[in-house]
């Protein structure tokens, strides 16, 4: 059985889904189900004390999904560590998607602060899944400090641009000894399939599902694409050639 192994847990699904931007908790719950997701990301924010917003995540069945809190909003290592510890207190889960994004326009992760925070959190007993730019050297440095995965971006968060970092992703996948989860920017199921065919261990999708006209149907489409891409990768894709190679016999033509 081909299962995704992260830290001490095994998963059948290789599609992680984010819970942001859904029109309603019901649509989110149905989309997670259609995606077949087992790991879902969540954020940590201040309660709006002037206008109690209650628990929009009540629709998530926590016995069915592993909640993966992120540190979104953190601008440096210190803020990320603080958010991770609060998330652990809130969920009782020591898994964290480490995100340090000081730049509000492209939301690109800060490699120096991410590495610093990863080191602190690993020592503090966290299972750390760091969101990073597609940097093969940083990936190795994070592995060295003990992160459970690396999560390189395909293109900026929420941009739906697809695999803009392809060449670097290929190197990361080739060199990684921890699972590679391609995160951010996957806009279509074909992008996800492409990443899986390259040998990514999993992908994380949020915006492309949550903001589709029919999120539940799009979630189902991503599920098929991730499965197709994985099976293609395991099948050993045939080599690409510059020139044609006939599929039909080159003998026995009806001519003299």
């Amino acid at each position, binding site marked *: 059985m081909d299962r995704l192994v992260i830290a001490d847990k095994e998963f059948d699904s290789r599609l992680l889904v*984010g*819970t*942001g*931007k*859904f029109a309603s908790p019901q649509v*989110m719950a149905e989309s997670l189900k259609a995606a077949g997701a087992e790991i879902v*990301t*969540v*954020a*940590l*924010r*201040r*309660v*709006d*004390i*002037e206008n*109690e917003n*209650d*628990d*929009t*995540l*009540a629709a998530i069945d926590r016995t069915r999904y592993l*909640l993966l*809190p*992120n540190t*979104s909003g953190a601008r440096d290592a210190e803020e990320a560590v603080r958010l991770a*510890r*609060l*998330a652990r*207190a*809130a*969920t009782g889960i020591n898994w964290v998607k480490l995100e340090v994004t000081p730049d509000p326009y492209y939301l690109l992760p800060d490699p120096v602060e991410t590495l610093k925070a990863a080191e602190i959190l690993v020592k503090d007993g966290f299972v750390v899944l760091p969101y990073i730019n597609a940097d093969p050297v940083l990936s190795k440095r994070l592995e060295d400090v003990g992160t459970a995965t690396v999560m390189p971006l395909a293109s900026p*968060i*929420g941009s739906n641009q697809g695999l803009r970092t392809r060449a670097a992703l290929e190197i990361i996948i080739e060199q990684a000894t921890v699972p590679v989860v391609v995160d*951010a920017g996957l806009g279509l199921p074909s992008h996800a399939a492409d990443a899986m065919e390259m040998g990514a261990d999993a992908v*994380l999708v*949020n*915006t492309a599902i949550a903001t589709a006209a029919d999120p539940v149907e799009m979630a189902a489409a991503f599920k098929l694409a991730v499965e197709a891409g994985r099976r293609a990768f395991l099948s050993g894709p045939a080599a690409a050639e510059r020139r044609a190679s006939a599929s039909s016999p080159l003998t026995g033509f009806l001519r003299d």
Partner: protein
Amino acid sequence: MDVLKVNGVEKRFGEGELPGMLSDLLDYLDVNAATVVAEVDGQIVRREDFGRTELSDGQTIELVRLMGGG
């Protein structure tokens, strides 16, 4: 007059009206404690300890919860 800074907002309480415990503050704010985690002056307080965490004038309190995110 007692003051608590809650999620960046100053809350003022008259003589003897300061909520005694963190759980009392949540009731006062009408916040459902079941999904909240708190920080009092930078120290994390778990839900199970809300009822025995005494509040005092001048404290800074953060109330956070999980929300949708990617």
